[in-house]
């Protein structure tokens, strides 16, 4: 599986409608414009669909930071 971060970036750019967004592992709702709770729901749906994974209800609560998100996804994708 190629770099997860590089696949996440275009998803974030689309959903937040910001073609210049640079996503890093430190990106979170506080430092990315437009990442509100509604965008978050869309982000999760699009990520689940793109990677063919599903976050559990418990996991959904702790996905506010891209680094954490990637770690969790690595486990799910068994990289």
């Amino acid at each position: 599986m190629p770099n997860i971060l590089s696949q996440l970036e275009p998803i974030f750019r689309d959903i937040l409608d910001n073609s210049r967004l640079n996503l890093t592992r430190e990106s979170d709702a506080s430092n990315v414009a437009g990442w509100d709770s509604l965008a978050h729901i869309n982000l999760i749906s699009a990520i689940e669909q793109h990677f063919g994974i599903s976050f559990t209800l418990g996991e959904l609560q702790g996905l506010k930071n891209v680094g954490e998100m990637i770690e969790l996804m690595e486990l799910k994708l068994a990289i």
Partner: protein
Amino acid sequence: MSSIAVETLIRKRKSLRRELLEKPNLLEVRVAILGGFTTNEVADFLEVLLLDRGIKPIFYQAEYNRYFEEAVVDLSQLIKFRPDIVYVCTCSANIQKFPPLDASESDFNEYASTEGERFAAIWNALDDRIGCLVVQNNFELPSYRLLGNFDCVSPGGKVRFINHINGEFAREASLRPRLFINDLNFIVAMIGLKRFHDAKRWFAYKLISTPEGSLAIAKSAAAIIGSIYGRSRKCLVLDLDNTLWGGVIGDDGPNKIKIGKETAEAEAYTAFQEYCVRLRERGVILAVCSKNSEQIAKQGFDHPDSVLRLQDFSCFKANWEPKPENLKSIAAELNIGLDSLVFVDDNPVEREFVSAQLPEVMVPNVGSDVVNFVSVLEEGRYFETVGLSREDLDRARQYERNARRLQEQSQFASYEDYLDSLEMVAEIAPLRPVYLERVAQLINKTNQFNLTSKRYTFADIEQIVSDDSYVTLYAKLIDKFGESGLISVIIGRRERRSLHLDLWLMSCRVVKRGVELAMLDSLVAICQQHDITEIYGYYIRSEKNNVVSDHYAKLGFECISGDEHNRSVWRLVLTADYVRRNRHIKESVGAKHLVSIGTNLSGYPG
């Protein structure tokens, strides 16, 4: 847009929205969504789908699960917002009390009426206090059945309860002209309960459905709202070879085409023809656009097994011209816009060509296998209707009559002679309560012959007809071919000695018949009796009303300001020697009587 994948819509929604908002002259509609669950996703999708139909929704979303309170207890937010439409977006999770497992039949009825009354209270309050249209979801089946199959039998079963309530909603909606049901029960059945419900999203965000489910709800709601505002398509244009029958009639001959019940393939074409006939019966116009020689093409409908007959088509184009050219003539002959057409062709090359040349024409990707045509057409909800009027049922005949009128026209030396030959009689009079529902519908859905495109709610119109400072007129038209019904409306507002025409619209099926001249004569007569000396007309350009940009110029008004192609103000100074414009339409005696009653300026006889 009608076949856009939900994944694409989620990812590209914001950029799509940005692009669509740049379309010129979008019609603004104020939509309040009162949700029993988190409705943001439905609203996001609905916005893009409506923009695609030329409607720009301005949303108000009530707080989550406050749909009852905001509609019945405290309407202040809604009153402030002034919605054109309130969408009560609820689902089975919002049913407050299901009957207990041991409920008796009479318990069941009691629970049902309690639940029904709760929603009736919402509709009543919205009707009384806001006067808007209401779109109401009915209920999807539950995600589990405690009693299994017996759940649809037992008075304590949720399945039976939901089915019953849905029946009650349908009954209510058939009695309430301003209540429309968004059939959630069907929508969910179509995609399946398993693919609709999403327990995780419910617990995490109070979202009832998967993104796919939200999109299905939004598509259906967009079709209803589009239909209310006259954005449904009107005409199904069909290719012939391998679309309405199997094989190529020019090569195989009329006896060898596949239609009838003999083979599986022939049966499939027959089924599609039957679907087209059903559409025609409910008011969709049918037309043919095919590369064929006309004479041979027509023989296909003489085939003994053909369900469709030649006379079912209001327009028939079989020739070797490019299809976009033929589609343009079909629209012109039927006097409808290209954006009223849906084109079905099994050939992907033709589909792509038409789509590229005429983006206004809807060209669904029906594939090349006739077995899928119906489901693709149904999925698009192109011909959505919110009611079935006598006029809908009569529409096919209306267009036949127009075709006959057109034929006659060619027999007369002049257009004037032709108009006289029609023996037109008009009833022109101030609005009466019995017509207000029809008037409200016309105001919403008339987009072409509409000078200002101003929208009024039913409550607005009720208020106007009882207000002395307004002059209103409607026109009904009859000619020797038949009745056209109520086809034109004027609303004028009096300011001292002048009258300002806030609204003038006419159904496009009677244009070029001189009805507007007869209406102006009546209007002038009323004005002169009431010491009104000037009439001001307004033209406000919209996406679709270019056809009336010179309306007031033709009637002899002078342009006093503005640019003819955008917004303009026109004036007619009334003098004692006003020359009546109308020469071809008789006014019915009843109508004259009504005009004279209307001279008290209340516009409200009786």
